[in-house]
């Protein structure tokens, strides 16, 4: 349906109910637990997911990451949007 694709950078992504994002000490890695899903996000994804609190807008997240990694905003924006959209389609994030 991709309705979210029409939204601008004002959306505030957050984890959907019954999705848990946690650090697994034993394996030393972040995991996302959802109904019948287990995702092991890489470092870049973790940086994005840690900001999906429901408080920050997509614009905030992109600004923060491009400042932190000293990378062009446009490039970061593309990556962040793609990941957020993909996880929203899978029911992991709510927008």
């Amino acid at each position, binding site marked *: *349906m*991709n*309705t*979210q694709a029409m939204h601008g950078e004002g959306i505030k992504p957050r984890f*959907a*109910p*019954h999705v*848990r994002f*946690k650090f*697994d000490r*034993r*394996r030393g890695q972040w*995991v996302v*637990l*959802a*109904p*019948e899903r*287990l995702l092991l996000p890489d470092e870049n994804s973790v940086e994005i997911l840690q900001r999906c609190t429901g408080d920050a807008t997509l614009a905030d997240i992109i600004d923060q990451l491009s400042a932190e990694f000293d990378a062009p905003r446009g490039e970061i924006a593309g990556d962040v949007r793609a990941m957020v959209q993909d996880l*929203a*389609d*899978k*029911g992991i994030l709510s927008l």
Partner: protein
Amino acid sequence: MNIDPPLALLAEITHRCPMRCLYCSNPVNLEPASRELDTATWLRVLDEAADLGVYQVHFSGGEPTARKDLGELVQHAAELDLYTNLITSGVLLESEDLFRLADAGLEHVQLSFQDTDAAGGDRIGGLKDAHRRKLEVAGWVVDAGMAFTVNAVIHRHNAGRVGEMIELAVELGAGRLEVASVQYYGWGLKNRAYLMPTEQQLDAVTEIVEAARDRLAGVLTIDYVIPDYYARRPKACMGGWGRRFVNIDPSGRVLPCHAATTIPGLTFDTVQDHALEHIWQHSDAFNRFRGTEWMPEPCASCDFREVDWGGCRCQAMALTGDAAQTDPVCSLSPLHESVRALAEREAGAGTETAVYRGAKKESVLRDLS
């Protein structure tokens, strides 16, 4: 060998079940209530699973809600920060049970539907009025605020209604739908000829599921388990033997998959005798088919050996009589053509005869589809 810990525990807490699904993949000989693990042992097993590194616990059966201590087990698992999932037929549940389970920390409920047609569903499930009750239970799951999946098992008699099943899942408020073709294990193997769909039916199912996936992205996640008798490659059963899942049966036997007891010559350790970690690392049953060393040709030199891990051991057992063979649904297996021909023959013959658990003789079933 460095063995990674399992990701999920399948806790088959009981084999008791008021339903008699013709496709039930539980063993032909069920464990009686008298042999079930007690509450204290399950609580300890949950501790051991969390220590071992398990993330998710699936409470299943049989009908897991037949056990009165389910709430206690769920609560303990949630306190251990395990992600909890209930796999249920729903027919024993009342509204207050669902609110109690949600309070105990249950995150996710998978409710099975046998069909969208009540008569068809009740016939496949062998229980009157089951379909109507399931519809009611679905509402309670949503009201209690848990994540909700509809599980639908597809076979020759309901394949034509998979589109309706997708609509039903959306209507009921599910966030996820599992469309799974029957896997022929345990009791279900007896009814294979009754259940086997035709290839045309399955192509139609695949088309409908794929279209719905696009249309419903962000609304309903659809997981589709392809019917492997018609496939060219086998499924990576359990994500590979002894790699991701640990299954504990009602009597405490620790199994690499819930059909593993159909393989003769495997020795299973029990949670009464050893800690889970010890069993995961050392049990004969887990190590027998772990990794790739056990593999015969064509698997041993195949590029897919660490993709599908040679397919399903229990299926190899059921179809070739030897669990250590390549899963014969694989197109590289010399037996592939004969398996496919078997599926086509059984689907084409269109038998109307099936057998329920506990029934003395086969029953003739009127087909409404």
